[in-house]
């Protein structure tokens, strides 16, 4: 949503403390790299972001979902080109974002290629353009605030990691606050001016506080003890990379400044950890609520650790020893500093100046908090951070892309459907000319061309055509083994759980899905590929289970059906997801050994544009992993169901 005319006051937004704190931090310290706000739809994400306008002199520049590359990065200024015959750059949205705040709503729905280029420009603070005969670059120093609804699609981790802070908006269940939200909305829409006036003073207060905090940031030292604490917490929460550590340190400092403190407190560090580490923890998907409790792992020295990796005295002693030796920690800090991209803004990073501050600190060890982390304090801090994070965490679903890997979501379209994502010089005559680009291509030559009563003369060599991409839906054919060996042991329930989770994903994305079941000596094409995802679910509920496993026949049926389907839908990427233990026991030809025969059947199967994925639903203890074998025969991948269901 782009609320350009309606501007809700920041102070009027009820609740959402974390998000508000995060945005204030961002305005306090320019070296912080962006805030990502995740939350279900209708939780005032966009409203909150837009309300920042009342807290800063900077503009809020929107990057709308429909913007093309030309609009985002810029291109030829065609009016000057026509008038003066000069090719000159006209900057795009990113140029307007320079020195301002760039706001990307629904960042997860943006075209991944565009998104990558945008993040690249932002982290290098420069936009380079090579198009329309223009070669230029311009600076782009901007603060990014993005929003997304995680239920729609996840953001690639590499992109999420670029955001120093990530907050999740947790829906409010208090009747009182929800009623307040309704009342305020009614008032706001009835008389926006009067409503905004009511909150003007409060917003002004926040604004003043941010200004004061901005001034005090340089004087707040990040002590070695602070860094030790942060590094320990990041380590324990399995934060990936060093960005988390740095982000925590800076955020803690910004929080301290906002609270009017002169040094960073434990509270600041705890709060900063919650803000900065939510999206950086690993492993987070598999263990669900127990996100950071890892079952079994080995630390650097190869010692096996126990279940709960709380901080032990040994580790503290280790840290103390390292601290005495200094070099190791210095190295750590050096690593942190090195890993920061070189920034063009002055003094914006955790740079030598700060390190000096740290060194100076060494002489007179912080009187309040010693240099060496205290076991009890850090453990308590860690526990609090975990509790806070767990509260935010929600059980994640099994996503299809976890099963099939990267699913291409946009395919070049061969006809005039789909959205124009670019243009090219056509081969021969084109049916789909791109008017804008054609005129731009013609513009520099207008000075030398003869006008035929027209203002712009277009020659055949100017003509460009659209490159169109379609949001391609994929097709997922599920093959579900419902034979007795699974239904009798309860493993079928696991399989259905997994299919259901994957179906929900397909439902969200509007993919086509189908279902084939095998068992009871029967192969049943229960649901041919359809967009009506619910049909598959209904079919699963009705399936009769038990009996033998006619796996071979199932493969042959799939082969026949899918080959037909692919012939009719050549643009579609198809996946066959077989959920089975791979233990065939009924041969197609009577008298053959079912498993031996399977190998020969697999050799004959060939379906274009289709990938096989075998989800191994076999017993834990068995002599031969038939599912893995089957995957090998079919040239597909094999995934253990326990990896998915968790």
């Amino acid at each position, binding site marked *: 949503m782009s609320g350009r005319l309606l501007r809700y006051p920041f102070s009027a937004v009820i609740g959402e403390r974390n998000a508000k704190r995060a945005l204030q931090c961002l305005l306090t310290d320019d070296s912080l790299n962006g805030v990502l706000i995740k939350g279900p*739809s209708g939780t005032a994400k966009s409203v909150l972001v837009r309300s920042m306008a009342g807290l800063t002199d900077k503009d809020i520049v929107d990057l709308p979902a429909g913007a093309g590359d030309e*609009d985002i990065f810029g291109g030829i200024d065609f009016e000057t080109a026509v008038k003066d015959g000069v090719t000159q750059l006209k900057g795009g949205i990113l140029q307007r974002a320079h020195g301002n705040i760039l706001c990307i709503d629904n960042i997860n729905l943006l075209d991944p290629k565009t998104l990558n280029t945008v993040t690249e420009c932002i982290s290098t603070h420069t936009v380079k353009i090579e198009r329309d005969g223009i070669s230029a670059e311009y600076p782009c120093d901007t603060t990014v605030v993005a929003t997304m609804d995680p239920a729609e699609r996840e953001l690639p981790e590499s992109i999420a990691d670029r955001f120093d802070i990530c907050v999740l908006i947790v829906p409010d269940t208090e009747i009182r606050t*929800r009623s307040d939200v309704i009342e305020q*909305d*009614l008032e706001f829409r009835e008389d926006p001016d009067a409503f905004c006036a009511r909150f003007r003073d409060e917003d002004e207060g926040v604004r003043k506080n941010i200004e004061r905090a901005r001034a005090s940031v340089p004087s707040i030292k990040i002590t070695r003890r602070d860094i030790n604490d942060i590094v320990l917490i990041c380590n324990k929460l399995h934060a990936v990379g060093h960005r988390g550590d740095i982000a925590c340190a800076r955020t803690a400092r910004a929080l301290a400044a906002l609270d009017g403190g002169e040094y960073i407190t434990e509270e600041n560090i705890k709060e900063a950890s919650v803000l900065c580490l939510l999206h950086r923890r690993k492993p987070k998907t598999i263990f669900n609520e127990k996100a950071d409790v890892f079952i079994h792992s080995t630390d650097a020295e190869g010692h096996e650790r126990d279940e709960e990796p709380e901080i032990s005295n040994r580790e503290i002693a280790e840290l103390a020893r390292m601290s005495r030796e200094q070099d190791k920690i210095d190295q750590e800090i050096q690593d942190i500093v090195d890993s920061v991209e070189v920034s063009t803004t002055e003094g914006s990073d955790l740079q030598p100046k700060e390190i000096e501050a740290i060194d100076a600190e060494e002489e007179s060890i912080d009187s309040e908090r010693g240099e060496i982390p205290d076991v009890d304090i850090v453990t308590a801090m860690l526990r609090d951070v975990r509790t806070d994070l767990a509260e935010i965490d929600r059980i994640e679903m099994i996503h299809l892309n976890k099963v099939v890997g990267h699913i291409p979501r946009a395919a070049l379209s061969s006809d005039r459907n789909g959205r124009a994502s670019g243009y090219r010089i056509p081969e021969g005559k084109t049916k789909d000319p791109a008017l804008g680009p054609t005129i731009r291509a013609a513009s520099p030559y207008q000075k030398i061309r003869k006008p035929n009563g027209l203002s712009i003369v277009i020659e055949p060599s100017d003509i460009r055509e659209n490159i169109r991409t379609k949001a391609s839906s994929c097709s997922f054919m599920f093959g579900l083994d419902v034979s007795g060996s699974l239904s009798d042991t309860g493993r079928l329930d696991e399989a259905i759980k997994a299919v259901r989770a994957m179906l929900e994903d397909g439902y*969200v994305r509007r993919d086509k899905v189908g279902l084939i079941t095998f068992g009871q000596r029967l192969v049943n094409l229960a649901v041919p590929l359809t967009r009506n995802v619910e049909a598959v679910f209904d079919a699963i509920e009705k399936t009769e289970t038990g009996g033998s496993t006619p796996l071979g026949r199932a493969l042959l049926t799939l082969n026949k059906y899918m080959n037909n389907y692919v012939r009719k839908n050549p643009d579609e990427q198809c996946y066959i997801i077989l959920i089975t233990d791979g233990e065939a026991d009924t041969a197609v030809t009577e008298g053959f050994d079912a498993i031996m025969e399977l190998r020969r059947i697999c050799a004959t199967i060939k379906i274009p544009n289709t990938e096989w994925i075998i989800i191994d639903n076999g017993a834990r203890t068995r002599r031969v992993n038939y599912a893995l074998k089957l995957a090998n025969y079919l040239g597909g991948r094999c995934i253990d169901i326990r990896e998915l269901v968790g």
Partner: protein
Amino acid sequence: MFPFTAIVGQELMKKALILNVIDPGIGGVLVKGEKGTAKSTTIRALEQVLPPVTHIRDCPFRCDPRHPEKYCPYCTEKYSDGKVPETETSPMKVVELPLSATEDRVAGTLDIESVLQTGKKKFEPGILAQANGNILYVDEINLLEDYIVDMLLDSAAMGVNYVEREGVSFTHPAKFVLVGSMNPEEGDLRPQLLDRFGMSVEIKGEKNLGMRTEVVSRRLEFDLDPYAFTEKYRADTEEIRERIVKAKSLIKDIRTDRKLIEAAAYLSVYFGMEGHRADITMIRSARANAAYAGRTEVTKDDLEEIAPLVLSHRLKKKPFDKTSDYDIQDVHKCLEDF
């Protein structure tokens, strides 16, 4: 056109549409139903009961003269010197968005003619411009490309169309009531988009034999002599339009008391709503419902009547779970408890 008032049954859909006309802030209607259940007929027929609106003459966006801060760029420029714009009054319309519409036709794009003739860039308005102040109807909205649906919902929610393409940057008011219809057999909308619709109605063909007979006979009568048939229902149609006009002016004076707002919030929490759209829409709809009935007081009954329209498509059921965690029938019980 088949008379709105001659449509048999489908009271819920009619109610939802009318309430949205009374308060466009409700946020549109999604009509789900099998084919042949008079979805499109009803929505197109809505035009007959739409109230007239006053707007600036000769403005392609039909700007509202009462809100200078929301003028389109043309009007802003034209009337910047404080000149009082000339106005005219015309009825609201139902504007249809064809499925094949491309992004540039929907949002507007560079005016090629102007570029070729003058060398100057100019914005050419699209369907969203036409839709401003009107009803925008999308048949089979579930088959529309996702990014176009996104665009529609964004504009509908914010009342503004913000175009940034082909080097033109343009903002114009695009305040409309979005009405979508779909046949769920052909796949559903993304759940996140569902939340953006203020209301939804699920409609079924009439099961009652008497009603079915009535449907058929009215249709036959209409086909035989459309003019006479329409004439027969003119008074009824006129009456509904009058009621809508009255309700629109009445709604400004309706206050909703805290107790009722809390009841709406309670319903939302009970039914597991995450965002606040449902809460807000319930209150607005209840208010419109009271206004339509000619009352200035909103009651629990209003809330109870409209709650299913607002809540049913937002229920956090597992998409495939027929036995959803909540039953919309609980609304009554829930309000009693409260």
